[in-house]
């Protein structure tokens, strides 16, 4: 795979979720070490709400039913921002980033640059999900337990 993307050191991915077409969770991963139960709940809530936002958006975008939809920023909760990606099989990918508000214009510029990066990151993750689904021993609709997929997610989203 050419150009294996990794997040820059200024973007911190906090969690990553993959949901199927009925919003059933297939994969959920937290990247923060020592995450508290409260934060865990908060992030799950954020992801859950993001799913609703995705539903709204795809119902509206009837004009482009066959394209992969990078949905960009979905929802914010305090400093956590959820970014989403879906495709015509209604598979949904959500990454939550910890993005404190920019302290200076340079920081703001960096944030907009990152937006473009997120699109490619999510597209890359989509490819990884497709590969994991391609495993004949994987039953679609069940939890993704592939170690290879786990490693790939870590390589892209986890800086530690």
């Amino acid at each position, binding site marked *: 795979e050419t150009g294996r993307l990794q997040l820059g050191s200024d973007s911190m991915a906090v969690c990553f979720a993959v949901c199927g077409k009925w919003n059933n969770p297939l994969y959920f991963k937290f990247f923060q070490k020592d995450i508290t139960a409260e934060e865990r709940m908060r992030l799950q809530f954020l992801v859950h709400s993001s799913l609703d936002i995705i539903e709204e958006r795809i119902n509206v975008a009837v004009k482009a039913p066959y394209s992969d939809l990078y949905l960009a920023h979905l929802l914010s909760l305090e400093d956590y921002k959820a970014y989403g990606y879906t495709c015509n099989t209604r598979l949904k990918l959500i990454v939550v980033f910890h993005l404190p508000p920019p302290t200076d214009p340079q920081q703001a510029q960096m944030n907009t640059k990152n937006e473009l990066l997120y699109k490619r990151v999510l597209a890359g993750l989509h490819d990884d999900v497709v590969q994991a689904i391609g495993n*004949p*021993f994987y039953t679609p609709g069940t939890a993704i337990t592939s*170690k290879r997929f786990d490693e790939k997610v870590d390589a892209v989203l986890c800086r530690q």
Partner: protein
Amino acid sequence: QPEFFSVRTMAQTKTLIRQGDRAFEKVDKINAELFTMSYGALVTQLLKDSNGDCDAVNQQLDSIGYKIGVRLIDEFIAKSSAPACRNFTDTAEVIAKVGFRMFLGVTATVQGWQEDGRQYSLILDENPLNQFVELPEKYKGLWYSNVLVGVVKGALEQVMFKVDCKFERDALRGDDSTELKVTLQEVLRENMENFD
């Protein structure tokens, strides 16, 4: 004896590689994912039907491969311009460089010749059947690509070499490479008594 055929076959191997490429160009192709997914579906279905009995499925894949091999050999002889194998030792490079290349798209390396020249190993660096596959723990007794074992046995039997073939290592099981061991059991003679 092993040194003797390494000198003689090095030049031959280059020719065989070229023949393999040419044969690969000539044959019809299908989408790789369709092929690997069909194979994957076959293996998982066999596992379901036998309730996860890996040995039974290995056996079934072997039998399926055998049926394929006895038919594939004619296609191979017709479409490839590989020379006829004068003896068992010739079969190694021909299978590795022409046969595998033509039908799987990849070449294998021949290694592990035994002193008496009756056994060799085919090493596959790439196995297209493995694409996307991750073998779960409970099926670690399975040789996922065991159909290849049957194909080799079936094909060689049609050219009068009765062989035993089996997997020694498989990348899917976590081994560092994929290895098939081919052992000559006997050279068959045309049995005229069958034509009564």
